[in-house]
């Protein structure tokens, strides 16, 4: 019986990262600075034994004159969809230089970011803290920055789970149904829920969550763009090709400045989505043909937008759109042939 309990304990220990467990290995610079990259002024950083909050070593940033530099490292093995609290400690001798910590995920265009406050103390170790939820690949970038003249030492960078994915999900679900929550909070909750659902390979549910956002915060352009783009992506993954086209069409119509590069890019995306939608309505060749004709118009519009901005600077994008036009015309003829619509 004792053996069974022990085995169960071991299994539980490996089943998931405990909330108190440090998820960031070697945050104390004891193994050197190999995991960290010294940014902007590559000579400002060094391994130091002058000060250490724990162990013997710390990472130092030294500015002989006013500068802004940093240590950056990528942490790839965190659990996706989890909210982490990341702590680091900074030490400075004078207030001529300040230290801070910032983080971001690496999945553009909608990467998350989070930052700590800047240091306020001198002559003692000071905690820098911020919370960040990982995206689907479990990667975050941590940057320890220094700004000003003088030296800063960093030590004991650690990450602990603040909310597991399930805990986050439950909280978010509560939030979206809460009477007291603001539309802004609900919209963010739907975005986060969509992300978790997508992560859990439930794209239809993700698409559903994302689709709620524009109605809640129609004037929050950044959130709506993020939601519509993610809605299109999730719909496609869920094989709801028509919904993908709807999302992108709304993105172009309501949230994209007319005549901008962004518009041309979104139109291009919409063209691709329509092509895929047409592909999947076959054998209804008539419907497919109609969708492809729309795609043809959309690609043509996108090319016009680029041409209107700067045909030389955007030559490659225009060439690619010309290619899409060639392909779509071929597909239209093929649909006509297969559907006997010639």
């Amino acid at each position: 019986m004792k053996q069974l309990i022990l085995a169960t304990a071991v299994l539980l220990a490996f089943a998931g990262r405990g909330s108190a467990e440090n998820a960031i290995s070697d945050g104390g610079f004891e193994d050197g600075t190999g995991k960290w990259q010294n940014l902007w002024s590559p000579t400002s950083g060094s391994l130091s034994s002058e000060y250490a909050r724990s162990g013997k070593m710390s990472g130092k940033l030294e500015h002989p004159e006013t500068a802004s530099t940093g240590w950056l490292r990528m942490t790839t093995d965190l659990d996706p969809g989890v909210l982490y609290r990341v702590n680091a400690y900074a030490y400075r001798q004078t207030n001529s230089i300040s230290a801070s910590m910032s983080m971001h995920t690496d999945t553009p265009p909608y990467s998350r970011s989070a930052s700590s406050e800047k240091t306020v103390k001198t002559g003692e170790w000071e905690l820098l803290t911020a919370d960040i939820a990982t995206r689907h690949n479990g990667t975050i970038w941590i940057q320890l920055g220094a700004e000003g003249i003088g030296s800063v030492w960093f030590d004991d960078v650690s990450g602990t789970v603040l909310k597991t994915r399930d805990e986050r999900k439950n909280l978010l679900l509560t939030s979206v149904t809460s009477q007291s929550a603001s539309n802004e909070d609900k919209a963010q909750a739907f975005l986060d829920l969509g992300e978790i659902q997508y992560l859990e390979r439930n794209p239809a549910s993700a698409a559903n969550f994302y689709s709620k956002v524009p109605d809640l915060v129609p004037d929050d352009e950044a959130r709506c763009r993020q939601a519509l783009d993610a809605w299109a992506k999730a719909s496609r993954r869920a094989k709801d090709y028509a919904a993908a086209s709807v999302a992108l069409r709304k993105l172009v119509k309501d949230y994209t400045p007319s005549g901008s590069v962004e518009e041309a890019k979104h139109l291009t995306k919409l063209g691709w989505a329509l092509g895929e939608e047409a592909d999947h309505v076959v054998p209804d060749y008539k419907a497919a043909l109609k969708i492809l004709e729309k795609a043809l118009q959309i690609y043509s519009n996108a090319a016009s937008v680029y041409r209107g901005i700067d045909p030389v600077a955007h030559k490659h994008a225009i060439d690619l759109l010309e290619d899409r036009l060639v392909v779509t015309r071929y597909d239209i003829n093929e649909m006509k042939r297969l559907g006997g619509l010639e």
Partner: protein
Amino acid sequence: MNRIKYIRLFASTLCIHVFSSIYLTAGQNPLIERELTPLTNPGFEDGLVGWSGGKAGDDGMIAGDGRTECKVVEMAADGKKSLCMHLDAWVDPGKLHLDREFKLGEQGSVYVGLRIKTQGDVHAVMGVTSEGRGTVVSPGIKPDTDWQEVGIVLNDPAAGGHSLKLRAFGKGKAYFDDIRVYALKPYSQYIRVKLDEPANERYRIYVWGRMARPREYFHKTYFEKEGVAAGEYSPWIHLNEGGEFSGSPVSIYPGLISAGIRFQKFSGGKFEKIKAHVQLAYGPDEDKIIGTISEENEGHIVGILFARTGAGPFEFVKQFRPMIDDARERNTLMKSLNLPPVKLKHFMIETASHGHGSFYTNPRFIELEHNTLGMIGINALSHLSSPYRQIAAKEGITRSHEAHRESILYELPKLDDEEFEAALRDPMYVKAMKVQPECKKLMESGWKPTRMDWDDLKRNISRGVGAWYLRMQNHDADAIPLIEFVDIGDEISGVVFAGEQFNEGFREFLKTHGITPQDVGRKTWEDVVAVTWGAYNNPLPHMRPKDRSDVAACRFHYWSLKYWTDSTAKVYGIISRELEKRMPWIHTRINFGQPWYNAATDMRGTDCWEFARQRTITALCNEDWLRASGSFSGIQLNAYLADLDRSCAAIHDMVVQAYVMPEDEDHIQRKLASVIGKGVKEIDLFSYGPYYSSFDNWSQNFSQAKGVAKFTRKLEKAEDVLYPGQPRKAKVAFIWSASDELWREKAPVQFDSHMADSMYNRHYVYFGLLHKQTPIDFIDEVEIQKGRLSEYEVVYLSARNLRRDVQKTVAEWVKGGGYLWTDALSGVEDEYGQPCELLLPVIGIKDLKLTESRNVDYRPHVISGLKAQEPLGSITFSDTGESLNAIGTTVKFGLSEPAKTQILATFADGSPAVIEHEYGNGKVHYVGTLAGCSYGRTTRRRHGKIVTGYRDTNRRLIADFPARVGVKMPLTCSAPMVEADLLESDKGIGVVLANYVGEESLEEVRLDIIVPREIYSVTSSERGAIPFQYNKGRKSVEVSLPLDIVDILVLK
């Protein structure tokens, strides 16, 4: 210093090559320190004193082969006498040598050289074997070569003994004379450069050269930081600093190094025109300069050639020369043939030529190379774009193809970490990693399999093809209309899929074929997980169930491989469709690779039949990689490949191509005739090179160039009839069993194990028919199930494994009046490797008693293979009393219906060996041994020669049957082994003849050709109009003519 100047003037190039003439003689060669005399009688002036390796004869020595006479004769390169080896009958390589022991003492590098002359079809070479160091061999001397210096370099030779070996093979005379040994100074390859024009420029140089595999190319920038001022020589560059250009030219490819010395503006940008000098020295010193190449050209590269250090002092000096010499020499050689101009209008004869931008930029190179190719008869070049295109057009080369690999290499969506980890948990993955360490290594390397998301696949491939097309458009839009086809894969293996979508697809695939989870040994559909084939090709044979009684496991194996092909074909199909969208006029092809390596089969996830059925590609192609010096069942296998491709192409009326690999003058003509005769219209002759710019090329193979040039002229004369011509519909089909490919190897070692009896048996059965001028289609199991057996009168089956439902169809077909030929253990197992007795009553046999050879190796080209198979008894024909050996397998059997069975031949104990059994309205011809292996076992293989020694008696086992059941062939030929193919259209009839009887010409070949209408002329491409007789009653034409190598007859 006494120097000779070689000055060459071209329209746009001035090239001056200066080197010391004294370096050509031993006494003053700067690399030679002194002459050594470890050997007495080095010029054979005192007879054969000191030589061993044979027995003393009446007048010299009889070599170790017990036959070849070696004696000193009054003919010499130096002095009065030399050694002559007289090979009066064919001697195989490695059988003949004379030896001479000598000692050198402690030395630095030493050169051992001599001169060799050959007369007749004989090759000669020298080698030195040193104690504990193995043998170093000199370059070989080819047949009919005048006195030529060859030698080897021994670096720090051992103080012990050495043995000089003089070797020859072939038939003719080899002469050896003037053996010399020199101590050498230390030397290596140093160069320096000077730019005269443009003056007042600063530059750096970039060297791009050939080196050796696996890195292949050497490239390095010199003077990158400081540059060099025009008008003065640069500092010395030690080109061979890393040892890249050391070693023997015989053992390291390439032996002769080519390099482009590119002059780059220090400020950036290109020089449009340069006048420059390149000096080679054997040390970094002005006194050690060997020569200077001075060039003025419209470009910015000076191309040079130089020798490896192991080439010896003479070649080291001699081979430093302008690279354009190589192009010019080949051009001059072609011109020396004085062949009439040729311009094929329809057949595509293609090769590849490279080098612009890396080895040269001087347009004179392209002009020379394309002129040479035009003379050969090439009318298409792969990747034909500016600036090649415009110059090629002047030579009538206006057709092209492109390759598209980007989609497969870069565009396939990959699994994410979580999906990959889940896939790795599958027991089949676990097993694969267990049986194959390389597989485990790959899985842990960060590599990821492809996710079978068809939306992503289509989207990514469309994007990849679009980007590829745009690159071409931006580079040279006018070149695009010249592209006739796009090559989308070379010797491919299936796409490596994994993940849930792949599994789901497998379940759907199984459902489509009526397979349940229980059929494949799983409880539910969730338990059915597809095998990720391809990531670990090597363990594939180890993944095959060893326990055949586990039927479910065998079924799973079969269907998982079928699914692999199906999935892979779909991916390549997407690529083809995307290409067609941009270039609707093109066709697409995959060079599958030869089935004897398991390529083009389910064993690589690339069954060419399924690819054709899915219209994955729109042209069928395979490269033969067959040489007369010993490839598999012989070079005629390229006819087998062409027939296979033609049969697959027929499914959707697709284009038939052939990738015909280089050979010598006669054999390349035979191979070309074979494929043209089978209906091939587009021929890829692999990469011409040139040698200086690429690995794997045939530019220096003048024999091949000559053969192609001769053939294209013959082809041109018949082109108006041959090009539209198609083979007359074959009445004989050979069953291509995909099931047999899965189970054929009895003791597979690796994924491309190729020792099996059934495979080589099929090759030789095919040959038996081909040698009797029988047109053959292949037909696979799926096509049979589509009802296509009805297209044929006779069907050949030689495959142990055949789908059970197909066996039923075959039985029904025979019952309905079909004629089936089969042998040994054909059809005794089904597609799952399970015993199957369905065909036994059809064949008319029962109570089988089997004897099988213990040797599982049937490879015809290795000593331990087919030749080593001991006969398992004899078979005697009842009508003529002729006998032959049973090979590999004998099946003794009882007759199930004696009254309906005719015994044609018997084993030595009098039991039936060959029978014909009437079944329903049809008939089955059965041979109780491996008929093909029995046919192939008697053959003779000689280095560089076609396979001969096929016995008419053995062929009877295979080829008599169609005539016995009254099948009429389009033509009959008096000489078996002459390949004679008929192509016809409303323009007339073409007959392509290739002499596979032997190397000698045939005095007379008589042909009886069935024609649909009266014929008024017969023209031979070799002999012009020839007399003929038209037989009105039989509607046939009889002609008689001599045949050298190949000929093409046109009947109008």
